């Protein structure tokens, strides 16, 4: 029997799910191995009977918690996809402000209608089995995780920095071009997407294990950033990490 797969979204732009839908050349092959039974962005039918749940988005409301717990109960495997689901993503930025203040700033007069609490990734609420980071996810990596699950192998998410993939691609280092790049402390897996297309890494996949915080700070300040700028740059995507929080 084909595994039953569901997609869910919380606070997000839904771009990661769109990245899945965009796999137009692969979708037919994919659905010959899996049954997609719940995918609000792509289909009308919705079932609560599924084996694998891919979850996009961060948790930003009290009401998200019971919904997530239900998904965990229903699914054998829970796989958060994208920066929001894995590390809070850009939504995590609000945690650096006073909650009431940021709520008023965003929603203005209607703020009272919007319930919100400090942003957290999925794993802060329920146990997860694997994560596919990135903003958005790398569709190739998504496919590779799905294939690994289908043949019963542990999916491999790299534990080295973007520099590795950037070197393998033969790119000119962003610092050689006078640009700032967070690739040296950011988890690879994107195929050095941004540097390969002429833009420094923004750190969307989160930090590698044991990043050298002080040395990276030195690199960034030497490149012309103030310490405050450097911290703000990391907070776009990596505010969830202890090294960036303080």
């Amino acid at each position, binding site marked *: 029997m084909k595994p039953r797969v569901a997609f869910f979204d919380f606070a997000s732009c839904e771009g990661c799910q769109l990245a899945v839908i965009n796999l137009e050349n692969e979708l037919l092959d994919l659905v010959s191995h899996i049954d997609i039974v719940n995918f609000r962005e792509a289909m009308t039918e919705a079932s609560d009977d599924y084996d694998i749940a891919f979850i996009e988005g961060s948790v930003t409301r009290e009401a998200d918690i019971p919904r997530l717990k239900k998904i965990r109960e229903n699914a054998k495997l829970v796989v958060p996809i994208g920066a929001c689901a894995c590390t809070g993503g850009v939504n995590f930025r609000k945690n650096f402000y006073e909650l009431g203040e940021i709520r008023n700033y965003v929603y203005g007069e209607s703020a009272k209608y919007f319930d919100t609490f400090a942003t957290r990734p999925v794993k802060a609420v329920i146990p997860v089995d694997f994560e596919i980071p990135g903003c958005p996810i790398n569709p190739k990596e998504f496919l590779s995780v799905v294939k690994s699950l289908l043949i019963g192998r542990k999916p491999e998410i790299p534990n*080295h920095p973007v520099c590795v993939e950037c070197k393998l691609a033969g790119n000119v280092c962003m610092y050689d071009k006078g640009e700032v790049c967070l690739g040296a402390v950011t988890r690879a897996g994107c195929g050095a997407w941004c540097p390969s297309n002429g833009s420094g890494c923004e750190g969307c996949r989160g930090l*590698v294990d044991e990043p050298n915080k002080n*040395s990276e700070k030195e690199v960034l300040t030497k490149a012309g950033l103030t310490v405050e700028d450097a911290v703000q740059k990391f907070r776009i995507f990596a505010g969830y990490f202890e090294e960036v929080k303080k």
Partner: protein
Amino acid sequence: MQGFLLTKENIKGLVSELMKSYRVVAPVKKETRFDFCEIEKFEDIRMDYDTTILPPKKHLSPPVETLLKFKRSENKAEPVFDNTPVALFGLHPCDIKAIRHLDQAFSENNNYDRHYLAKREKSLIIGLECQPYDYCFCSSVGSTFAKDGFDIMLTPAGDSYFAEAGSKKGEEILKSIQAKPAQESDAKKAEQFRAEKEKKIVRKFNKVNASTVKELMEKTWDHKHWKELEERCLACGSCNLVCPTCFCFDVQDDVSLNLNDGERKRLWDGCMLVDFAKVAGGENFREHRSQRIRHRINRKMNYLYDRFNSPTCVGCGRCVRACTVKIDPVEIVNELSK
């Protein structure tokens, strides 16, 4: 062996001759840097390049290389060899020596790496004598000049190039383009170019040399400098990945969407990366960055010395160039020998 004198026009002729039977790879401009790329026309070649982003190794042992194809249903695998003839044009002496190291590593003790050797046996190396640039330090590791390891070696001699054949194949090619035999004065000009190169080398080990650096490494295992480097190093692996003599790789299997046809690939790996020495159960033999740097520098200056009869660092300076915090083997060795 007899020398030839090649004018710029002759060099162009040489390249077009090569392009008839080889994929010609040469230094070309890439944004702010140079890189070894397959060329479409002679004019793309930059004879004045300083160094390249990646070493020419990438055309003999590519960053990602398919080793075999398999079918899960049949339990069968077929090896994949790429033996497209490639001419590596414009290699500096350090890179020529580095390829000699790779040749040895991929064939010694009857351990033949057929994937590397398939390409290497069909390859041609045309060297180009150089002048030092900001990061290199060849004289400290004994790779200033290439005496062998090339098919043809070109040394600037005035407006032309003094060409020597280093193999039968190289000699045949030089003869086929009807290059003019060199005069003694041409050989002298080439000799002068090399002498100037040697004079211009400023980045050096100040207390040890290519033969004694090994002993220094053995005495400095517990030196406090390794700990200092721990603070600076980002462990990004860039130094490994741009090194012409790093040949470690990781092997990964990838299966297509039909879940049956698959490929086994190897990818360049690096000992500076945290997972490199991690084993099943999670134990990491080189957990700290200081241990990994010490390993890398020893790997280049000490561990393989007896096997290769030389340091395996060739002093190309790519690692320093690529390092965002400028960790530098010359500074390390000089600090250790203080």
